[in-house]
């Protein structure tokens, strides 16, 4: 796929629904899934005489996001009308921001812990607020015009985040989206639910092809209808190959006749993009400032307050896990990518158990496995960090081997029991040192040949004793049995000398 004769150039436009209780310019609820047209009022259905009033909470969430995206925030921003006719746009215009967006010139850092690409900054061209349109369901056959419109979504606050065309592979595009979603989730500004339309992605992609005359850009294609990040990655890979084939065929460059921008839709079933009919709208949106809304003034004090309230963001957290807790970059990435609550659980576990590496391993292998199997979030995980820390300590002190501990953990996760309860119901007991020493002495007395083999330098011979030890006491830790037996044999040897 990574044909050396061309470079892929991708820019992404992400629409994020901000998590406000009410719409951007009226007080209707933004709740998803209500019966059609039940969350509407004169303002959001554009009745004559109604007027918009800006939702300050929506602006605050947008500001928080823009600051987290390292954007420049101008002190003055305004609202514009983007005008076009569509049945799901009841006013005949969308209130958006055109030439003075609330933020621009930011960036988001992306990285791949496995090193699939070098860490990089993806530029953010702008992020602006706008109201969502409604939903249309069409049955517009020839000679028939049957459409149904639901205006519940109309007026929902959207933040449109436009990246620079800085991504050079489908993997980078996916990483950008993953990192952006993670950031938005950490900020608590959106639930980023793609199924409910809270996060929508459009991509612009073309190729820079190396030719004997230098680099040539191919026509830009806007790709829509991608319903998951995986779909974005696949659509970009598909488009790159397709565009290169077209280029080889036609040699039409960007801006040349026939080289204008086109729109294609991703077909998930067929795993391919298809040309899309343009909407029945003019490309001249006749933007002009909305006279019904006052411009918004953002002060330095406001920005300071937003910065102070931002909390620890994913990039900083990854670094902290590495420097303060000695976790490697990959593990830190996995933990941080699970979200803030998961990180908090990890930090508590590492703190109480005093063993961050063991905590990290258990979180990634065991806790994540259970969460995935049972489709739970960490908030609903039945084992508290304190309980799990107790289990980890028991393992650390050798009182329980890893495989027995895993049984205990599964029982705890299943029932919500504490560690002692779970061990009791499994009939597992921690074996104390004295008890184990007695057991080992008995075994050595009963197996002089093993002792002789070990003394002859064949440590592996101990293996024969471990099975016997497990039969006598199922809770015996095999590692400890091995260690203890070896020590006892060495003590015997030195006593004989």
């Amino acid at each position: 796929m990574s044909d050396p004769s061309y470079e892929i150039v991708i820019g992404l436009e992400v629409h994020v629904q901000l998590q406000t209780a009410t719409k951007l310019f009226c007080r209707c609820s933004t709740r998803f899934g209500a019966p059609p047209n039940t969350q509407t009022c004169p303002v959001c259905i554009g009745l004559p005489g109604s007027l918009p009033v800006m939702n300050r909470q929506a602006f605050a969430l947008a500001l928080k996001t823009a600051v987290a995206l390292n954007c420049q925030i101008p002190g003055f921003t305004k609202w514009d009308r983007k005008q076009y006719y569509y049945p799901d746009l009841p006013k005949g215009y969308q209130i958006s921001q055109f030439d003075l967006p609330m933020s621009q010139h930011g960036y988001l850092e992306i990285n791949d812990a496995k090193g699939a690409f070098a860490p990089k900054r993806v530029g953010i061209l702008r992020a602006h607020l706008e109201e969502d349109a409604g939903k249309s369901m069409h049955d517009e056959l020839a000679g028939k015009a049957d459409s149904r419109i639901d205006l519940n979504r109309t007026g929902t606050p959207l933040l449109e985040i436009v990246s620079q065309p800085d991504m050079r592979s489908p993997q980078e595009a996916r990483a950008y989206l993953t990192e952006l979603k993670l950031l938005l989730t950490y900020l608590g500004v959106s639930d980023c639910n793609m199924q409910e339309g809270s996060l929508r992605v459009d991509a612009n992609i073309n190729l820079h092809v190396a030719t004997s005359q230098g680099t040539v850009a191919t026509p830009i294609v806007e790709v829509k209808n991608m319903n998951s990040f995986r779909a974005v990655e696949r659509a970009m890979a598909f488009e790159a190959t397709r565009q290169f084939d077209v280029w080889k065929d036609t040699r039409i460059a960007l801006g040349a006749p026939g080289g204008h921008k086109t729109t294609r839709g991703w077909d998930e079933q067929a795993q391919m993009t298809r040309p899309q009919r343009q909407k029945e709208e003019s490309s001249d949106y006749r933007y002009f400032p909305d006279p019904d809304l006052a411009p918004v003034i953002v002060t330095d004090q406001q920005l300071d307050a937003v910065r102070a309230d931002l909390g620890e963001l994913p990039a900083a957290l990854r670094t902290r896990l590495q420097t303060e807790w000695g976790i490697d970059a990959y593990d830190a990435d996995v933990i941080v990518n699970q979200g803030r609550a998961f990180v908090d659980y990890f930090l508590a576990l590492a703190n109480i158990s005093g063993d961050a590496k063991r905590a990290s391993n258990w979180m990634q292998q065991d806790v994540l496995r259970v969460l995935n199997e049972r489709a739970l979030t960490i908030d609903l995980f039945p084992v508290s960090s304190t309980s799990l820390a107790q289990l980890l300590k028991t393992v650390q002190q050798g009182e329980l081997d890893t495989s027995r501990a895993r049984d205990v953990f599964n029982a705890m996760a299943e029932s919500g029991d504490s560690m002692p309860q779970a061990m009791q119901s499994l009939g597992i007991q921690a074996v104390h040192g004295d008890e184990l020493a007695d057991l080992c002495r008995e075994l050595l007395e009963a197996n002089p040949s093993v002792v002789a083999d070990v003394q002859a330098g064949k440590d592996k011979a101990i293996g024969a004793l471990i099975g016997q030890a497990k039969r006598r006491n199922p809770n015996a830790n095999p590692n400890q049995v091995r260690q203890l037996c070896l020590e006892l044999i060495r003590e015997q040897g030195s006593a004989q000398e």
Partner: protein
Amino acid sequence: MESMSIHELTATELIQRLESGDLTSVEVVRSFLDRIEQFDEKVQAFLRVESQRALSDAERIDQRRRGGDPVGRLAGLPVAVKDVICTEGQPTTCASRMLQHFTPPYDATVIRRLKQADAILIGKTNMDEFAMGGTTESSTLATTCNPWDLQRVPGGSSGGAAACLAAGMAPLSIGSDTGGSIRQPASFCGVHGLKPTYGLVSRYGLIAFASSLDQIGPLARNAEDLALLLEVLAGHDPSDSTSANLPVPEYSQLVSQPLDGLTLGVVREHFGEGLDSEVQAAVREALRVYESLGATVKDISLPHSRYAIATYYIIACCEASSNLARYDGVHYGYRTDEAAMLADLVAEQRALASRGEATALDDIDSPLVRMYRQTRSEGFGAEVKRRIMLGTYALSHGYYDAYYVKALKVRRLIRNDFDAAFREVDLIAGPVAPTPAYRLGEKTEDPLAMYLGDLYTVSANLAGICALSVPCGLSSDGLPIGLQLQGPPLDEQRLLRAARMYQAVTDWHTRRPEGF
């Protein structure tokens, strides 16, 4: 009290008699309903009269008053409402086919304020379609005549609002003023009309023509009544982001205080070409009256006023083209006959197909686009369409900077002119309109001539300042002439006091058209 004379009383007098028990609200309302019954067939000021509702509301107010319950400022007093202002459960048409059957599910803020003041909404008045025009002739629902001469227009766009007062069919009414739409009909009909400072009165529920220029304001037959109604209408509204958040002065108390050492500015540019000599004489005479009251008259210049008409029509049309986009037949209001439209479409497709014109077939409208086109071309009248097209053009790519952006810059300069002027003078005095009322049909074929009639009024809207019209004379044809007073932003009290001073020593405001 004899019913014939009730309509002669001012609103302030009516309230006194209602309060003293000399009159009941039912008597007052019935008297005005009788007047409407008697005269509105000729004048056609009203698009709808809410007789039953008004009488039952009046009865309720009377009961409350008898029971000693507290009542509002305008308790029991009829008020007429221009049909551009939304009234819950009552059709609000903008005098357009587009909204002929539209009934808003909510009250405009000013309607809520009137209801809180216990005013009786007696009916909705005629206007130019979507408030676009200066004669009320672009109404697609009725032709309103000027009570002073039934062959003449009442002015516009609030023609019904002014005519109903002149004919004694209501004591108070409210209109809207985007470029003179309250002041000019007030002048043509010999009544008082005030355009408040932009932001003083909530626009919530006022069907938008040009959002940055529109203001709702009062019309009345004297300055005191005007002050009283303004006091009820004004005030901050959180539902209107452009509403000023300031306390409302007690206009009704302040109005009777004369102004000492008043300086009136007279705009040189307002006495140029196109001003009717009788209007000029009446305005000059009014200035002499002010001088006799101790005022100083000073010559001033508003150098950018000659660009006001062009600036106004660009901004107003741009905003209108956007504001009226919502009337597309999808969600409410007029929609073309879809069955007929689809039948036409199919017939056209067949005809093209049978002639083998495949490319032409591809160009044919989709049903949706055709529905939009037919709905809008059938639902809007000519003047509305003209302004939508002008505005759409001016906002288009490639023209935006040359028209809209430039107009905004000139608008700023016009405001600066006023700011400079008001550093020298307290108020600016001049004509409202270049001529008295036109004959019906006189200007309908010449929109440019009609636009020029807005010469003296549009600047106040562009600058966002306040202005009013006071009756100051009659032409040789017996037509009323108005004096315009313009004041700095939020200085309505000064305008009202100045109008009251004039009114105290003149009797133009007491003249009534013959036969009414």
